[in-house]
């Protein structure tokens, strides 16, 4: 089990946040194109930073707790997956906060932010204009 430890930590992150998509309706996994593009654009600089950190000896990884699959001989597979898993958790959390906030306080600040972010159809403006949206 020990070599699986880093992978299991990431798996736990995905498992804990999954209900945000499937129960609260965050709609992150259901926008695969936007998600993929976000990961590539936003994470590239952080992966470069990580490689710089590895190269300059800022940190390294225990071979005991990783699978031993080192990409390019330097970055454990799990470390690359970190830059997929953690931003997904961030997006799910943010979308869920906006959706829940809009549900609890339909005319509150979070509802306004949710509508601006496209996390919900614009509830308040619908109510004001009496114009239902498909």
């Amino acid at each position, binding site marked *: 089990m020990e070599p699986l*430890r*880093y992978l299991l*930590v990431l798996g*736990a*992150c995905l498992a*804990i946040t999954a209900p945000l998509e499937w129960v609260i309706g965050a*709609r992150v996994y*259901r*926008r695969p194109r*936007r*998600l993929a*593009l*976000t*990961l590539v*654009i*936003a*994470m590239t*600089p*952080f992966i470069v*930073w990580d490689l*710089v*950190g590895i190269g*300059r*000896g*800022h*940190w*390294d*990884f*225990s071979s005991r*707790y*990783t699978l031993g699959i080192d990409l390019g001989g330097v970055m454990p597979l799990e470390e690359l997956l970190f830059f997929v898993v*953690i*931003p997904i*958790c*961030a*997006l799910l*959390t*943010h979308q869920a*906060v*906006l959706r829940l*906030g809009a549900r609890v306080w339909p005319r509150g*600040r*979070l509802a306004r*932010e*949710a509508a601006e*972010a*496209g996390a919900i159809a614009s509830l308040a403006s619908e109510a004001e204009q009496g114009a239902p949206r*498909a």
Partner: protein
Amino acid sequence: MPEYTLLTVLAIVVVVLLDLVVVRTRLLATLGFWLALAIMWGFQIPVDGWLTRLDEAIVRYDDQHFSGVRVFLDSPIEDFGFGFAMVLATLMVWTVLARRERSSIEHAGPSAD
């Protein structure tokens, strides 16, 4: 200043400037961002701690390349700055893409996500 500390400060400055001045997503001015960040920092304590705890470290930090300040489960304090920059960068790009999709939908008529 140790390099990890320096890079963390630099990353924070860059993402904050991008959000407020350059890209103008202005997530830092929203309640939703700070609530989400508070929740994520709460989870970062055990998750990052599980990676950094000194007795069974998965990721091992060289003490001379960061401030030396370890918090909670031996996490370098810089990790929370790294997390902040990473989260803000992610939400910023998502927001830009969402806006772009919406404006192209408004111009081209209804379409799927």
